[in-house]
């Protein structure tokens, strides 16, 4: 009995990914001792920061039985419109930047929700459509040029750190204050998904929509909340990216969806809905970021890295789906 539970934990997806991460770190560390140290953690955190925000939003959508491929477009339109508006009206407030970007995101999410939940268009098609619609609007009405003038107060956020570290060679590594955003988000998501009826409802509709309806869940309400939250977080993620890069680009995040979805799936979320965890998502993003950013330390040539990243995604997703099949085939109790 107890043995069974220990075994369950040891063979859980989270555990497997965690082991792969540790193994990879050890290998990189042996090949290149430069890897070991606080600076790696700081660099990695910075590299993962925005992906983490997108990933938690996408995971919630997928758990609910949907998918949202429009978040890069939502993020781009939110961040670009906000920066443009603020520059034009000489507004300079961090709070305003996030509020407006998130607000635009919510409106885009609302559009997704209406298409998916009310008009009942398959989520992939609906969000794909919204994605190209938004991208078109951004380019046609807002502009195509990158803006490097970010309002001062907003821009200064990129120079605020919660932790700095100087190595022997005197190189300074600093952890941006923006890392607090994903930290707070992940804690919040964990609590909401596990300990509220809204969270359980998201899992329930992802597991069996019909059963959820019969049980008395308000499916439409839950779907609206899910897609609007995803839109909001896309807006927040977009603004965070702008501050981090100190530049607002109308296309800067396009194409991010593949990597984010891959990270989520590697983290154990089932693309068919109903299964997924916050910790798994964190680990999935970590693994991909680790591979993307540190292969160079193993002496892998640059053009080869894309291949390796792709390879890991394929292997990771294959392992996950084999696991699902293995669980299905296990004798029932």
């Amino acid at each position, binding site marked *: 009995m107890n043995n069974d539970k220990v075994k369950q934990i040891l063979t859980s997806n989270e555990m497997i990914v965690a082991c792969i991460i540790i193994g990879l770190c050890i290998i990189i560390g042996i090949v290149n001792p430069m890897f070991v140290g606080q600076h790696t953690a700081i660099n990695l955190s910075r590299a993962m920061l925005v992906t983490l925000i997108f990933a938690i939003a996408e995971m919630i959508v997928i758990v609910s039985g949907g998918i949202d491929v429009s978040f890069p477009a939502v993020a781009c339109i939110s961040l670009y419109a906000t920066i443009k508006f603020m520059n034009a009206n000489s507004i300079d407030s961090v709070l305003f930047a996030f509020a407006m970007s998130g607000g635009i995101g919510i409106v885009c999410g609302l559009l997704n929700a209406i298409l998916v939940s009310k008009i009942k268009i398959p989520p992939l098609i609906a969000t794909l459509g919204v994605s190209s619609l938004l991208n078109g609007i951004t380019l046609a009405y807002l502009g195509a040029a990158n803006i490097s003038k970010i309002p001062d107060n907003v821009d200064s956020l990129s120079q605020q750190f919660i932790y700095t570290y100087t190595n022997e060679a005197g190189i300074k590594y600093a952890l941006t204050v923006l890392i607090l955003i994903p930290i707070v988000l992940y804690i919040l998501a964990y609590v909401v998904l596990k300990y*509220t009826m809204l969270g359980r409802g998201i899992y329930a509709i992802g597991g069996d929509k019909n059963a959820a309806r*019969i049980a008395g869940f308000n499916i439409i309400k839950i779907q609206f909340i899910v897609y609007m939250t995803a839109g909001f977080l896309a807006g927040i993620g977009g603004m965070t990216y702008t501050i981090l890069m100190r530049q607002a680009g109308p296309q800067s995040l396009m194409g991010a969806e593949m990597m984010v979805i891959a990270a989520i799936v590697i983290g154990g979320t089932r693309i068919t809905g109903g299964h997924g965890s916050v910790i798994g998502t964190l680990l999935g993003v970590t693994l991909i970021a680790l591979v993307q950013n540190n292969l160079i330390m193993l002496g892998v040539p640059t053009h080869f890295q894309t291949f390796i990243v792709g390879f890991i995604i394929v292997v990771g997703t294959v392992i996950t789906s084999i696991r699902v099949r293995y669980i299905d085939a296990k004798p029932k109790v």
Partner: protein
Amino acid sequence: MSEVFLKLDNIKKSFGGVHALKGVNLEVKLGEVHCLAGENGCGKSTLIKVISGVHDPTSGDIYIEGKKITKLTPIEAIKMGIQVIYQDFAIFPNLTVAENIAMNNALMTGTKTMNWKKARKIALEAMSRIGVSIDPDLLVERLSVANKQIVAICRAIINDAKMVILDEPTTALTSKEVDRLNEIIFNLRDKNIAVVIVNHKLDEIYQVAKQLTILRNGENVATGGIEEFDRGRFINCLTGRDIQEDFYRPEPSDQEVLKVENYTKKGMFENISFTLNKGDVLGITGLLGSGRSEIGDALFGLIAVESGNITLNDNPITINSIQEAIKNKIAYVPEDRLTQGLFLKRSIEDNTIAASIGKYLKNFKLDQHAMTEVTNMWIKKIGCVAASSQVPINTLSGGNAQKIVIAKWLNTNPSLIILNGPTVGVDIGAKADIHKILHDLAAEGVGVIVISDDLSEIIQNCNKIIVMEDGKIISNTDSSELDEEKLAKLLTGTVMAEGGVANE
């Protein structure tokens, strides 16, 4: 004098042009077990969904405890004490047992937070009330069908239910589990809960029901105490015709169709040998886990065996994959029809021709006309109630969907057809029709194997019967030498020997 809990007056319900209910009346009292019977597609499940607030009736009145209800939503119905265990259970495979059981309670009280400790406690309490124990932390997708149903029952009884409705609860249960379910039902009845049960198996109805309401084509046919219905009247009310429940006794023949020798897959079955002659319908029965289903799976290439020879129509063949099985014209009607047998969102026609599509491919084009024609032929022949051949499977009633699985495989013109639980959830009239089709096939020289735990089906429908235990054949005889009682003894003998293992 017990009081009336639920009264339905002239309930009508249409789906587009399909009139599923054409004015149904029903009265259920507290503390009584009321059986709702009728052929596939007569509207039983639809009626239940009206009672539980899932479907709005097109017209008609619902009275609960004497009060007229204008708008009934699922949550409203639960609040009034109506609990339903649906044909497909409607539970969440991705959530734990505890959560599934406690979910309704949480929704009903309108709490915003999820209390895992409380959920576990509620679940354990509910399970102990009906004398079962399943690990509350397991995910429901890991449970067997019988245990999934127990989860659904537990969920139904936690909320001070006043009425519990069970839609075909015994389709996936072994006879021992049916006994346990009956006890649970009596237990509910004695607590003054109204129980409504839908079932196609007459014997089981006689065991539990006190009151009977029979529907046909969405209308009431008869209602009254169970004692007013003998078997003949019951069948006549159900089907509108008389059905002889006689035995299958084919002309003896020595033309061998199928010969299986020393078929072995360690851990599942060992040294299985039997022959099947022209005209034979072979029944394989045994308890769950005795290897009966696995033999069917193996003959269709779903399981690779370790050793053994198969001769089909005098040709030695090997079957290591489904493709090989299909190439040798073997057809298989699987046990779990909803996941293995059908494309639920596709039309009846697409499903009927799914396994024989090659036949309709001419000059790289599908012969649409022939496909529709053959589908309509099967709909008629197999007695499927459907508006047209183009409606999607998921709008059919449970039993009618099952008939399409059988039609799909019959349409492949097989040399050997294996049916695993072929008439689960199929009404008594259609069952007779399906049996007739099988007997005709056997007479034409097609090998027919029926795997089932429905003993009366095996006894009446097969002329040879194999009983399995622990992967071995413990009896292989002509059905004329057996009756239901003897067969049951053979099986329960196994139960004794196994002790409490079946409970695991």
